[in-house]
């Protein structure tokens, strides 16, 4: 794949005020924002995400979250955040530090998981907090009387965010499965019974995403009719040193930060959009490397990886003696 034309450090920013913090389940909380300048938000389409900046002491955390609010209501944006106690701290910060009235900064929405409007029918598969993009998609489809159905897997009724609301509003279109009760989404029979022109969308844990792709492929669905979104969080790893040629700097990437975060910490203007290995915006050329890459993104293809000439700094790491990047 080739790098997008104008690589920028994030989408345009919007100053917002936290207008509501609403607990949804034991682990999930909804955050609602209004624009600090009182204007409407820019329009967005279902499946879009925003990157939220969190000022956590001397550290700025930037995490992507799917917009879940109704795309036809631009008076506010809403996200839902699941607290990951073993995560890198972004979701814990949202849960413990953010209160109504707080000033925050988010980016304009970017959509890497949009509806395919050629579809005659949309079938959604959500696992856990992966429900959020579908809430916005459903809002959008309901405006045009779109043909959709949702299959939502959660551990227990108590942990299934928004399941009650969805079931009450769309009793014939929403199906919820509780793994705690031993019930799984019957993927094989669902995918084999869809009318021609159906597009499938999946968001949730990697296991569910892979299962939907594999099941669909196994019965003859083409790849272009199966859409998925998984934001990867950067994984920790051994610290490594990087020489940034254009910036004329040598920096060290710490154990718990990504290469992208390390560049930002050092004031290097590094492009990104999703920070989760999906959008391609952060693609960076490797000038020289003595060692191996840990590629974790969903962007580079096998040839790119084999060439050893590209890395996605938002999620991928390096193990070796020397690495020089064209940045």
């Amino acid at each position: 794949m080739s790098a997008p034309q104008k690589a920028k450090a994030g989408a345009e920013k919007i100053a917002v005020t936290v207008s509501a913090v609403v607990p949804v389940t034991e682990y999930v909380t909804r955050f609602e924002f209004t624009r600090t300048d009182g204007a409407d938000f820019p329009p967005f389409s279902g499946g879009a995400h925003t990157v939220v900046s969190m000022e956590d002491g001397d550290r700025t955390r930037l995490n992507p979250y799917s917009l879940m609010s109704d795309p036809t209501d631009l008076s506010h944006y809403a996200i839902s955040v699941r607290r990951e106690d073993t995560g890198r701290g972004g979701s814990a910060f949202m849960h413990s530090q953010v209160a109504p009235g707080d000033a925050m900064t988010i980016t304009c929405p970017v959509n890497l998981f949009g509806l395919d409007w050629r579809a005659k029918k949309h079938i959604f598969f959500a696992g856990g907090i992966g429900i959020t993009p579908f809430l916005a998609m459903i809002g959008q489809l309901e405006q045009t009387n779109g043909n959709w159905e949702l299959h939502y897997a959660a551990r227990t009724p108590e942990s299934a965010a928004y399941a009650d609301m969805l079931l009450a509003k769309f009793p014939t279109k929403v199906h919820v499965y509780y793994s705690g009760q031993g019930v799984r989404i019957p993927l094989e029979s669902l995918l084999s019974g869809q009318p021609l022109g159906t597009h499938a969308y999946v968001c949730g844990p990697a296991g569910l995403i892979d299962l939907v792709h594999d099941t669909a492929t196994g019965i003859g669905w083409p790849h272009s009719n199966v859409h998925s979104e998984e934001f990867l969080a950067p994984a920790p790893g051994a610290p490594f040193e990087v020489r940034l040629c254009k910036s004329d700097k040598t920096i060290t990437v710490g154990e718990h930060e990504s290469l992208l975060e390390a560049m930002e910490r050092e004031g290097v203007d590094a492009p990104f959009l999703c920070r989760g290995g999906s959008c391609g915006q952060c693609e960076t050329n490797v000038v020289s490397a003595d060692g191996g890459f840990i590629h974790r993104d969903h962007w580079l293809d096998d040839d790119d990886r084999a060439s050893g000439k590209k890395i996605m700094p938002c999620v991928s790491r390096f193990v070796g003696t020397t690495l020089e990047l064209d940045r």
Partner: protein
Amino acid sequence: MSKFEFPPSIGSRPVWGTLEPRVGQAHLFVADAQGAEAILDVATPELMAAAHIIFITRGTDYADKLRALNPSQFYEGPSYDAALSRIKRVLSDAKMGLQVYISGTESLMGQMTNEAAQAGVPFESIQTEHRGSTARRMQCVHCKGFTEEVETDPFVCCHCGLNLFVRDHYSRRLAAYQGVCVDAEDPGNVPAQKGIYE
């Protein structure tokens, strides 16, 4: 010889492929005349177990050979138009995971690809292979009428009678090449007829 090497042309001219077996829940084969040979080449017992073959004979005698492949359903008819109501019915009942294989003339492949795509079959699930006649389905840009089985350039529009020049310009929506009046400036001054690929 049922295979023909089409000369390189402009971007709008369709490029046909070679059928290959695909994974799928059901397999729909639509072929006319020598297109049957492409089915005979690709058929396997596994494919045939879930196959529906719709064969447009156009005067050929491949039907028995196709029937011998033992597809789960077989239909034989004289023309595409005669088969169309059955094709529409099969597509309206079909589910995602259907694989479509179309072989034979460009006219059949163009029209059948359209029919399948309109029914919602993803383009990635449609395969084509040219066999047999290289005659074209042409649309007259003046009267919009279609003339089938055009083998020569120029030709006479079977609707309005104009002398039409055969272009490589193709419309997927119409499944036809474009025919444009060749003697508009100087009526009667028509170049000598020759085969399209001569």
